[in-house]
């Protein structure tokens, strides 16, 4: 796959750039020191602070890009992404509840709550998907689920007794790759790898769904299993992402859209390039969040939404073509 090789090179370049640049400007001598003496201050900045951050952004971006590509293939809709099915909102609700009820103080408490939220939403979506043949209906339920998750999160914010708690929740909902260490990354990696494997398993089914539910059902592929794998896989990817970096929107929507033309629209072949593109986008978005000089550092979700909303409009405009009879 030449496209994947090119995207991998681009990702490595973006990561190198994100390691080299940051709020603290470094001199050439300091870059040299960082490489030759591991104990130096520059080495600490680059490998202790920036590297886990770049790693977090890349991992979360890849997970969201892949999750979005799977959702779009499954629902045969270029506007689908984890947010549409309510998975992001449920994960955000889990995180908010953990902060409000004090579980977040325990190690891994917040992460587990976010993952649990995503999995519950994923299970609901999977159960509905098994009973509903038409993807449009599933999107409607997704919107309802998303609204419910958002409403409950707002309720927690509303009833939150201390402004500190409310602020903590709000920060989480805005998304960030800052202050993560390698252990946090390691925790998220397990569910993400499992999710990725499930998505890869579902790939041929996604391509077959291009012809519609009935043709896919009679294609000889085990569609019920493949559909369940796709929903579970993307829920795991989304939940682990929210657990690691909060709610980050638009990557799942934009990444598949950017690569689709290069793989002649085949949903299965969109998966790997979408993951790589999502990683590149989020590494660059995080770099932008760090570099744009503001008094308070920009949150990752804010940056992706600022760039993502116009992309959403562009996708909607182009999608109108495939919705013509």
């Amino acid at each position, binding site marked *: 796959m030449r496209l994947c090789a090119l995207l991998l090179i681009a990702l490595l370049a973006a990561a190198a750039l994100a390691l080299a640049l940051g709020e603290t400007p470094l001199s050439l001598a300091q870059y040299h020191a960082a490489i030759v003496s591991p104990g130096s201050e520059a080495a600490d900045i680059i490998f202790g602070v920036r590297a886990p951050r770049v790693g977090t952004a890349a991992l979360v971006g890849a997970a969201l890009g892949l999750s979005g590509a799977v959702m779009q293939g499954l629902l045969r809709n270029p506007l689908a992404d984890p947010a549409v099915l309510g998975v992001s909102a449920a994960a955000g609700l889990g995180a908010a509840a953990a902060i409000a009820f004090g579980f977040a103080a325990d190690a891994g408490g917040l992460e587990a709550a976010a993952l649990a939220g995503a999995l519950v939403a994923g299970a609901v979506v999977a159960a509905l998907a098994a009973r509903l043949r038409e993807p449009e209906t599933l999107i409607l339920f997704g919107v309802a689920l998303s609204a419910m998750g958002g409403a409950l999160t707002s309720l927690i914010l509303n009833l939150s007794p201390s402004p500190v708690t409310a602020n903590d929740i709000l920060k989480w909902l805005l998304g960030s790759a800052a202050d993560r260490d390698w252990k946090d990354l390691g925790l998220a990696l397990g569910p993400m790898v499992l999710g990725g494997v499930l998505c890869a398993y579902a790939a041929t089914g996604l391509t077959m769904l291009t012809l519609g539910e009935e043709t896919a059902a009679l294609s000889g592929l085990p569609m019920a299993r493949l559909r369940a794998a796709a929903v579970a896989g993307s829920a795991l990817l989304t939940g682990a992402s929210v657990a690691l970096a909060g709610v980050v929107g638009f990557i799942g929507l934009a990444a598949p859209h950017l690569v689709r033309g290069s793989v002649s*629209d085949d949903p299965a072949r969109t998966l790997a390039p979408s993951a790589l593109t999502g990683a590149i986008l989020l590494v660059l978005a995080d770099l932008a969040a760090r570099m744009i000089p503001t008094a308070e550092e920009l949150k990752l979700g804010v940056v992706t939404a600022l760039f993502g909303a116009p992309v959403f409009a562009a996708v909607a405009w182009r999608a109108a073509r495939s919705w013509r009879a």
Partner: protein
Amino acid sequence: MTCALELSRVEVERGGRRILSDVSLSVRPGEIVGLVGPNGAGKTTLLRAALGLQPRLSGEVSLGGRRLEALGEQERAALAGYLPQERRIAWNMPAWRIVALGAINKSPAAAHELALAQLADLEIESLAQRGVLDMSGGERGRVLVARLLATNAPLLIADEPAAGLDPDAQFLVAHRLRRQAEQGVAVIVTLHDLTLAARSCDRLAVLQDGRLRLCAAPEEALAPPILAEVFGLEGRVVSSPAGAVVAARRLTGDPTRT
């Protein structure tokens, strides 16, 4: 000889309404059965019930002599290929890839080769690389017929394969289905064009309000009383140098209808 498709006393209800009542029909290898009837007679429901896409209230269906319920997904796909009426394709994939999806059990190279051959057979080889959403509806319809033929199934079930096609392409598709039948494939198609049905099918199954009125050779199935009672048409099958033609007009028994 084992029937490729056999429906026995099939009943279907949907939304509390009876769609099919006591329908028994069989399709043998090597024959083309045309399913005709006015809108809402239950043609599509019959095809979907034959494939297990539509739950039945009662009755039995067997494919290739085996009960539908006993078949796994792969076995069912190996016994029947289906072209649904819905022609929407979600993504703008090149035509040859869409056709190749009919042959997923083949290697990618073999599926590619088969897809190009099927497109050439339907005289649209020049469209092989074009995205299916960048085509006219009729061209897309031909691509989907090519995908159906690529399944190589011993039973082909096609819902309105001629819909939206120009006259030449309609005859071309009918001819390709006939060639399949000559090779021992069983074919069942729904058609609205009665002339096309009369010319291209061995037997016509006439559906009226969910009941099978009769299943017979075209001249008998489209005899004047049937045309009048089922289709509300006054006319008959006449022979022409090119083949049978259904010459008919709307019944004028009611003065408000012309």
